């Protein structure tokens, strides 16, 4: 297939995934800040939302303060922010339009329908309630797009590049949550964690829709090191780093075998997966959780670049 087509599909999937992720972050933040101040503590959750979205620099270039109004506007509706939910959907639709022929009718319908609906929300919500509805809608749109791709696409390179985009983006997103909140997840020697921490941990899990899964996997109350374990190493957890790399390796292998040629992307991805498979949480804590995550984010970026060089340019 055309390199440009593959590139468009890959970014189309990434942008839809990113929009969903931003909606999750905003939802979790909204929930945390709705709790009484003495429960949440002094930390500025809106500030960490900006950090988790990975756009602190561009945010502070426009705003002085990270508060609900500014962050909501910037992450959800701003057209100045190329990674706002709105911009993500706009770019996704532009990409989709450029590769109409590679999409199924259902996928086009999902992304074009989302884009048409986007206009209804205009420049921002009139109330918190409406904003909540908006965030739900964003997630549903992503589910619809993802579901229609899963159900209707031919299993060929077009599909594999789409999946690759989703999982590379998702791995990056999960890693960013961990990067911003890692200090809350370090195993505490003395205290078991106050109510403050409990809500923070719950919020982290919620932002990757894993609160229920946590209980099924561990069958005990929230422990920070188990939250880290779930998000990093548990392959059965769909948004964990390990699960993302299961999929990245799988789809890169599909591409490699269809084209009859392996390359640097395949080798790099397998290396990262092996490292995740061979890691244990106590080891990661010992060598530094923060360092581990930083390294992971760098590796993940490197793979994105390699995929681009190998196939998309």
């Amino acid at each position: 297939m055309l390199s440009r087509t593959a590139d468009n599909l890959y970014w189309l999937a990434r942008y839809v995934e990113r929009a969903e992720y931003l909606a999750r972050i905003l939802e979790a933040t909204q929930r945390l800040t709705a709790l009484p101040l003495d429960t949440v503590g002094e930390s500025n959750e809106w500030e960490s939302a900006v950090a988790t979205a990975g756009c602190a620099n561009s945010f502070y270039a426009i705003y002085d303060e990270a508060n609900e109004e500014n962050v909501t506007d910037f992450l959800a509706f701003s057209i100045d922010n190329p990674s706002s939910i709105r911009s993500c959907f706009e770019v996704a639709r532009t990409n989709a339009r450029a590769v109409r022929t590679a999409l199924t009718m259902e996928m086009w319908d999902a992304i074009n329908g989302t884009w048409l609906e986007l206009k209804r929300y205009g420049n921002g919500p009139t109330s918190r309630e409406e904003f909540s509805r908006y965030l739900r809608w964003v997630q549903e749109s992503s589910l619809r797009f993802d579901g229609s791709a899963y159900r209707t696409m031919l299993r060929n390179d077009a599909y594999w590049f789409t999946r690759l985009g989703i999982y590379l983006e998702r791995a990056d997103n999960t890693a960013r949550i961990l990067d911003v909140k890692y200090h809350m997840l370090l195993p505490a020697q003395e205290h078991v964690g106050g109510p403050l921490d409990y809500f923070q941990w719950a919020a982290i899990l919620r932002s990757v829709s894993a609160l229920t899964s946590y209980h099924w996997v561990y069958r005990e109350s929230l422990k920070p090191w188990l939250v880290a374990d779930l998000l990093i190493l548990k392959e059965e957890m769909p948004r964990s780093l390990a699960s993302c790399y299961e999929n990245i390796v799988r789809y890169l292998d599909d591409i490699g075998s269809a084209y009859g040629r392996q390359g640097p992307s395949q080798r790099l991805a397998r290396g990262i997966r092996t490292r995740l498979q061979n890691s244990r949480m106590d080891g990661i804590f010992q060598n530094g959780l923060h360092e581990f995550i930083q390294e992971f984010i760098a590796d993940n970026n490197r793979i994105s670049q390699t995929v681009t060089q190998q196939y998309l340019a």
Partner: protein
Amino acid sequence: MPVAFDEMKGTDGAVRPAYSELSNWLSEVRPDVLDYRRREAELVFRRIGITFAVYGEADAQERLIPFDVIPRILAASEWTTLTRGLEQRVKAINLYIKDIYGKRECLRAGIVPEDLVFQNPVFRPEMNGQKVPHGIYVHVAGIDIVRVDADTFYVLEDNARTPSGVSYMLENREIMMRLFPELFARHRVAPVDNYPDELLATLQSVAPSSSPGEPTVVLMTPGVYNSAYYEHSFLADKLGIELVEGRDLFVKNEIVYMRTTQGPKRVDVIYRRIDDDFIDPLAFRPDSALGVPGLMSAYQAGNVTLANAVGTGIADDKAVYSYMPDIVKFFLGEEPILKNVPTWRCREEEHLSYVLDNLEQLVVKEVHGSGGYGMLIGPSADKATIAAFRAKLKSAPKNFIAQPTLALSTCPTCVDSGLAPRHVDLRPFVLTGRDRVRIVPGGLTRVAMKAGSLVVNSSQGGGTKDTWVLAG
């Protein structure tokens, strides 16, 4: 202005045979049903994203062309005559272009004035003496036809460069079959959905003889911002070929390749929907970012087929149009089956003075214009407009031709007040391959949605209809 011929009711009010079933159906169907399906059709179009861009309109980046749910119907015998005429005309066009860039016999014989060719901006000296694969220049032609009475069809315009609109022919049919199955059950409508197959067969048949194995065909688009982008992607999809932009192609050793996820792949036939000016910045406009550097060199080396060929504009220019009947006679030795609209060439003194004396009754067109821009419709223009146009005409008479204001035929059309006659034209598509000419029974019917209006161009608010050719 003479009374228009209505395709359903003729001039005497009696329903014509081809329309009898439709007329019965229209008298039975409840207005709200019609209205409901009309809205449903619009919804489908919006959802599929069949939109077009109007240049120079900032607010309406993507707009829908109004779709009218009442079909336009042609009888089998009418279509047979049209087909013969279309095939004849396109054959002549191909021979004429070959002659212009070759022996130039028609110029020596004085059939077409030399300056009309050589001073024409669409003439491409790069094509002089240049062989094109299988000697075919116009692989896809869109011939605009208007009708003025029961027996007379005129060719209004030849489109021999990158004619568009065929996606509407296909999508309109698709939607009509979905919305009005009962109406189809009462007619025997010739199918049009084999058009993509016919187009692909045509394109494959003209691959350069040097190309190894199964030819690779691609459709080249200027990109998503082009007004016909939807059609480009639609066709590429139906043909099962790659939709490429200039940046997806490159030329090495006079061979064209596309960049794919598996490395470079050779391209043999380019169905290009991008103008000559933009295809190769090395040969034509150096500022074109849409083209492929070196494409002309590969073309001249005979390693790639461009459909349509470069330089076909000298056949569909409005100034050349008036010579078409003579061109047909000269190259084929036959009388033209399809007539031209009587045309005054303002470049000729006698014609000019007639035109200047009768501006109020005439339609005056710029010879290089298209899309209904820059034309004067005498009968509906006010005094000031006519005066301004007169000055323009006098200062450069060569740039204009004039025609009588035709009473284009009308078809029943859904408007806010119910059903009303509206003026229509027809663009059938003629495919010319190495093996034969293919014409799918149908075409794009454009309809002027405003009462009395004769301008059917989509950029001027015109709409479309499904075109039915009844099986004999």
